[in-house]
């Protein structure tokens, strides 16, 4: 099996320093909605300048290079054990090169490992066997600020008058956005999962964030709710950084899961504007980055 450590290192460099074009496009459109001279417009100007500097210098867009979340889709017969070793070596090297901040802290002893390698849980790596010969590795970096404002609701929620239906889902998601204020580095992108158990619900609410901006759920009813949530969240006027302004949320993505008859969880993962996600595909001898 081919050693992909260097290619994965390149994936990490790209993810940390170069914001995906679909996200940048949304941010460039959002600045036009803010009044000249406002704090909100100033925030967007700084954000856009930072995106350019990071890309030109291969330096992290955000110093919080987050939890590295890898999703690996591999062909039959490939060793996931070896792939995981290569991912870990690449991450340690990326940290040495300052593409990544050392972010793995032992929660019991408060000790930073210094190389971004924690136990088996850090980095987070998910493997899935797929048909065909191609290998794809997707990486998302999710910072702590936005992770901290994520929320999980167990419906019914009487304080919000949220029942066990899509109307109830709408209410709790809007509540999560209001509670987050600017602390998740607004404007944010919402990953919402409905159903599952507490664990699977949170995981899927992040997984849905791997899709492109503007990707709508194939169920028209859910697609409509996605659009409505983005628009209503923006009515709250929290704005970039919580300064007040027209854009609080850039997009909403919803996924529905199976649930137990007794449970109705809604999980909201808040992604900051520094929405770092990249993909590499190994096709025969060739490595293609998106």
């Amino acid at each position, binding site marked *: 099996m081919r050693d992909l450590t260097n290619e994965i290192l390149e994936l990490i460099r790209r993810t940390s320093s170069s914001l995906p074009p679909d996200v940048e496009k949304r941010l460039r459109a959002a600045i036009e909605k803010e009044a000249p001279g406002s704090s909100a417009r100033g925030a967007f100007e700084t*954000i856009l300048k930072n995106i350019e500097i990071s890309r030109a210098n291969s330096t992290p867009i955000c110093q919080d290079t987050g939890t590295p979340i890898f999703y690996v889709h591999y062909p039959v017969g490939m060793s996931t054990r070896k792939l995981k070793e290569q991912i870990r070596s690449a991450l340690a090297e990326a940290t040495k090169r300052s593409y990544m*901040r*050392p972010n793995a802290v032992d929660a019991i002893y408060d000790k*930073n490992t210094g190389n971004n390698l924690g136990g088996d849980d850090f980095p987070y790596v998910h493997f899935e066997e797929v048909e065909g010969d191609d290998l794809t590795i997707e990486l998302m970096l999710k910072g702590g600020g936005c992770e901290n404002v994520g929320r999980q609701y167990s419906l019914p929620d009487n304080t919000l008058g949220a029942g066990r239906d899509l109307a109830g889902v709408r209410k709790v998601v809007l509540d999560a956005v*209001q509670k987050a204020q*600017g602390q998740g*580095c607004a404007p944010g992108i919402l990953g919402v999962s409905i159903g599952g158990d507490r664990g699977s619900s949170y995981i899927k609410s992040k997984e849905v964030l791997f899709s492109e901006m503007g990707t709508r759920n194939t169920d028209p009813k859910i697609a409509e709710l996605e659009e409505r949530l983005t628009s209503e969240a923006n009515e709250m006027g929290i704005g970039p950084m919580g300064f007040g302004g027209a854009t609080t949320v850039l997009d909403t993505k919803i996924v529905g899961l199976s649930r137990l008859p007794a449970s109705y969880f809604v999980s909201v993962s808040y992604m900051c504007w520094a929405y770092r996600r990249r993909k590499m595909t190994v096709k025969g001898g060739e490595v293609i980055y998106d």
Partner: protein
Amino acid sequence: MKQITTPISDETIRDLKVGDAVLLSGTMVTGRDAAHKWMIETFVKKTRPPQGDDMQVYEELKKLLNGSVIYHCGPVVSGLDTKEYKFVAAGPTTSIREEPYQADVMKHFNIKGVIGKGGMGAKTLKGCEETPGVYLHAIGGAASYIAQTVTKVYGVFKLEFGVPEALWVVEVKDFPVVVTMDSHGGSQHAVIEEASKKVLDELLTR
């Protein structure tokens, strides 16, 4: 755009109002979760006896922070092997986690400015009135840009807290911030929180 250099006088602080854009220059110190907990427990409330070089660092910090600024930041730093430190990425971290500590730390060390993101609560706002001081909002995620305003890294205390949590002493030039909490009880965060809650309440009835 106002230009301010540390150390900052009370008069300058009292002049600042919510919404003012500021380009900040001069010496400042980074400090976040571990640093605030350590300062409160060891020097302010004294619930933990000083250990190792704690007292020596305390004496240095008293001089550095007096009239100056603390920055909620866990930077990416190069040159760790050679000790020729350079900030590579250095945006703000979420400040609200320091809410239990900030006002007491400000008053104890006479800190005039707190830089972070997301704003802080009522206790810190009162601390801003009393010290007096201001909360300066930097742009979250703008790490490469802000790192370019860090012209010099003088050194580091408590590196054993880890690179993000250590106290880095730096010189900055034209660091862009916005006053979102002033020394007159004004808070942009309180205003936005209240206004957005009203809209939410209305949306919940639809």
